[in-house]
C-alpha cells in the first residue's frame, strides 16, 4: 500500500480530501530537522500552525512571480507596472471580502497583522466612541492582542475592562455573558476561536445578544478564519479580524473587516501618504474608508501573497479543510486519552484542531525540547494568553495545532513522542 493509499484509507476511503496531494504543495513539509553529519534527521512533523502556518508553493510562487514581473508601488502611478501592481493588490481586497462574505472591498482594511487591527479599532473607534466609565467586554480566553490594546486605552481614557469567564471545559460562560451586557458596556470584543483551547465560540449568539442591547461587536477571527468558513454577515459582526500568516499567507499583513457605516465615521489612525486627500501645514483632509486607515506604502507583496493564499484555501474549500481537521482532532483526542498523566485543556463540544496539554511531572518546556528532537514541532509556553493559564492553574502548556496538511500518521508520531518523553523523564 503506498503511503498515499494508506492515508486515504486512514481518513476514510470516500474522503474527497487528498491530504498527500495537498502536502506536495508545501515544500517545507518534506524536510527533516536535526540532521547531523553522518546521521539523517527526523522528518518534520509540523504541529505549530496555530502560531503560524506553512505556505504552499502557490503563495510562494505568486510573490516571486510578482516581484519578477509586475512589481511597483501602488495607487499613485500612471505607469504600466504601477497599474498592474495596484490591480493585483486591490484584487486581494475583493478576495478578502468574498472570503468573509463581506458586501464589498470597501469593508476591508489591510493592517500589519491581527494585532495592529485591534490597536486600530482601540485607538480610532475607541477614542471616538468610548469615554471614562464605559466598558469593553472581553473574555477569559483572549489572546494578548485582544487584551493589551484595551488596557492601553484604559490607561489613556479611563475605560473599564470586563471579562466573561471560561467554564471548566473551555466553553464561554454564556449565562455570565448575558448578565455582563450591562449599560456601561459599549463594545463586546471576543475571540471567535481560542488559540489555546480550540473552543469555537457561538459568534452569532454573542452578536445577537449584544446587538439587542445596542452594543458594537468585534470578533477575533485569527484562529476561526483558518479552520472553517466564516460569514461576517451571517454572524452579524461589526468588526472581524484575521491575520495573513495563519491563513497560509505571508507575514506583514492582517485584515480588519468593518461595517462600512462604522468605518466611515472613524477618525484616521496613523498619518502619512496614501491616506490623505489633501495636505497643507495648516489642515489635512483625509481620504474615505478603508484607505484612510492605510498610511504609507502598503504591504503590496504581502497583499499579492495573501490573495494567492485565499485562492488556495478557497479552491480546497474551507468546509473540506474543516472536515479534514475535525477528523484529525477526533483521532488525536482519542489517542492522547491513553497517555497516563496527560491532561487536555479545552474539551468544549465545538472545538478547532488545537490541543493544549500538560503531562504530570514534566514541564511543558521540557516536553517541547524532547518532541522537537523527535521532529515534532509544537509550541510550549503561555501562548500569549497568560490570564487563561492562570484560569486553569497552569504556568504553561504544550500545544499541538493542526493545519490543512497534517495527517493521522503525524498524530501517531506525536503520541509516540509524548510517550517516549514520559519514559525519558520517568
Amino acid at each position, binding site marked *: 500500500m503506498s503511503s498515499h493509499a494508506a492515508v486515504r484509507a486512514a481518513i476514510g476511503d470516500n474522503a474527497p480530501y487528498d491530504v498527500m496531494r495537498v502536502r506536495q504543495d508545501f515544500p517545507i513539509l518534506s524536510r527533516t530537522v536535526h540532521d*547531523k553529519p553522518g546521521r539523517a534527521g527526523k522528518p518534520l512533523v509540523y504541529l505549530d500552525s496555530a502560531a503560524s502556518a506553512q505556505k504552499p508553493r502557490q503563495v510562494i510562487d505568486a510573490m516571486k512571480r510578482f516581484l519578477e514581473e509586475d512589481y511597483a508601488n501602488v495607487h499613485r502611478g500612471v505607469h504600466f507596472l504601477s497599474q498592474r501592481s495596484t490591480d493585483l493588490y486591490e484584487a486581494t481586497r475583493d478576495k478578502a471580502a468574498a472570503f468573509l462574505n463581506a458586501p464589498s472591498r470597501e469593508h476591508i482594511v489591510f493592517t500589519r497583522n491581527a494585532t495592529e487591527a485591534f490597536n486600530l479599532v482601540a485607538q480610532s473607534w475607541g477614542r471616538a466612541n468610548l469615554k471614562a466609565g464605559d466598558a469593553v467586554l472581553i473574555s477569559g480566553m483572549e489572546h494578548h492582542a485582544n487584551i493589551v490594546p484595551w488596557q492601553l486605552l484604559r490607561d489613556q481614557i479611563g475605560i473599564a475592562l470586563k471579562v466573561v469567564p471560561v467554564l471548566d471545559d473551555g466553553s464561554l460562560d454564556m449565562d455570565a455573558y448575558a448578565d455582563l451586557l450591562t449599560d456601561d458596556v459599549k463594545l463586546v470584543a471576543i475571540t471567535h476561536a481560542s488559540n489555546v483551547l480550540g473552543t469555537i465560540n457561538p459568534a452569532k449568539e454573542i452578536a445577537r445578544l449584544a446587538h439587542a442591547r445596542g452594543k458594537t461587536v468585534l470578533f477575533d477571527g485569527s484562529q476561526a478564519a483558518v479552520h472553517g468558513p466564516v460569514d461576517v454577515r451571517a454572524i452579524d459582526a461589526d468588526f472581524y479580524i484575521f491575520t495573513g500568516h495563519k491563513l497560509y499567507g505571508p507575514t506583514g499583513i492582517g485584515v480588519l473587516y468593518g461595517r462600512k457605516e462604522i468605518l466611515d465615521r472613524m477618525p484616521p489612525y496613523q498619518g502619512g501618504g496614501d491616506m490623505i486627500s489633501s495636505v497643507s501645514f495648516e489642515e489635512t483632509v483625509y481620504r474615505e474608508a478603508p484607505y484612510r486607515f492605510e498610511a504609507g506604502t502598503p504591504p503590496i507583496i504581502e497583499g499579492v501573497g495573501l490573495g494567492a493564499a485565499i485562492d488556495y484555501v478557497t479552491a480546497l474549500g474551507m468546509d473540506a479543510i474543516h472536515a479534514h481537521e475535525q477528523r484529525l482532532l477526533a483521532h488525536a483526542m482519542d489517542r492522547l486519552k491513553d497517555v497516563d498523566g496527560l491532561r487536555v485543556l479545552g474539551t468544549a463540544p465545538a472545538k478547532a484542531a488545537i490541543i493544549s496539554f500538560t503531562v504530570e511531572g*514534566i*514541564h*511543558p*518546556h*521540557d516536553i517541547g*525540547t*524532547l518532541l522537537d*528532537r*523527535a521532529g515534532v514541532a509544537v509550541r*510550549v*509556553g*503561555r501562548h500569549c494568553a*497568560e490570564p487563561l*493559564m492562570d484560569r486553569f492553574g497552569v*504556568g*504553561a502548556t504544550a500545544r499541538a495545532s493542526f493545519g490543512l496538511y497534517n495527517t493521522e500518521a503525524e498524530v501517531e508520531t506525536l503520541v509516540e*513522542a509524548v510517550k*517516549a*518523553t514520559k519514559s*525519558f*523523564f520517568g
Partner: protein
Amino acid sequence: MFDDLRDLYQEVILDHGRNPRNFGRPDSFNRTAKGDNPMCGDKIAVYLTLAPDGSIQDAHFDGRGCAISQASASLMTEILKGKSQAEAEALFGHFHDMCTKDDHEHTDHGPVDEEAFEKLQVLSGVREFPMRVKCATLAWHAMNAALHGEEKTSTE
C-alpha cells in the same frame, strides 16, 4: 530517540529537577528577588540570608520551572552557601559565559571557586540549546538582583 539529549539532561539534572534542594520560602532571609521567564511562563523567587560581612549564609528558592531551571536553581543554592558576594558574582559571570559563549570568548569575571564551578558543568549542555539558556540562568539573574538589593528581576 533522545540519545543526544543526554548532554542536556544529565542524570544530575534530572535528579535535581525531580528533587530540588533548598526548595521553599525559608522562615528568615534578608534578600530576595523574583525571576520571570516570559517565554515559558516560569517564575521563581530566590531568598538569601547574608551574614554581617556580606557573605551568603544561606540560599533557598521556590517557584515553578522546567527541569533545567529547577536543577540550575537547586545547584546554585547548594553552591552559594558560604560564598562571598564577589565569589558569587564571579561564579555567575563564569556560568553565564559557559551557557552562552564558546570557550575562547569567555571574559574575566575574577577568581572563581574551581570546585564549585566544576559542579555547574553539568549544565554546559544548554549552550547547544539557545532557547533554553534563559532557563539555566533564570535563578542566577534573580540571585544577582537579590544581592544588589533589587526587588524583582527578569531574565530578559
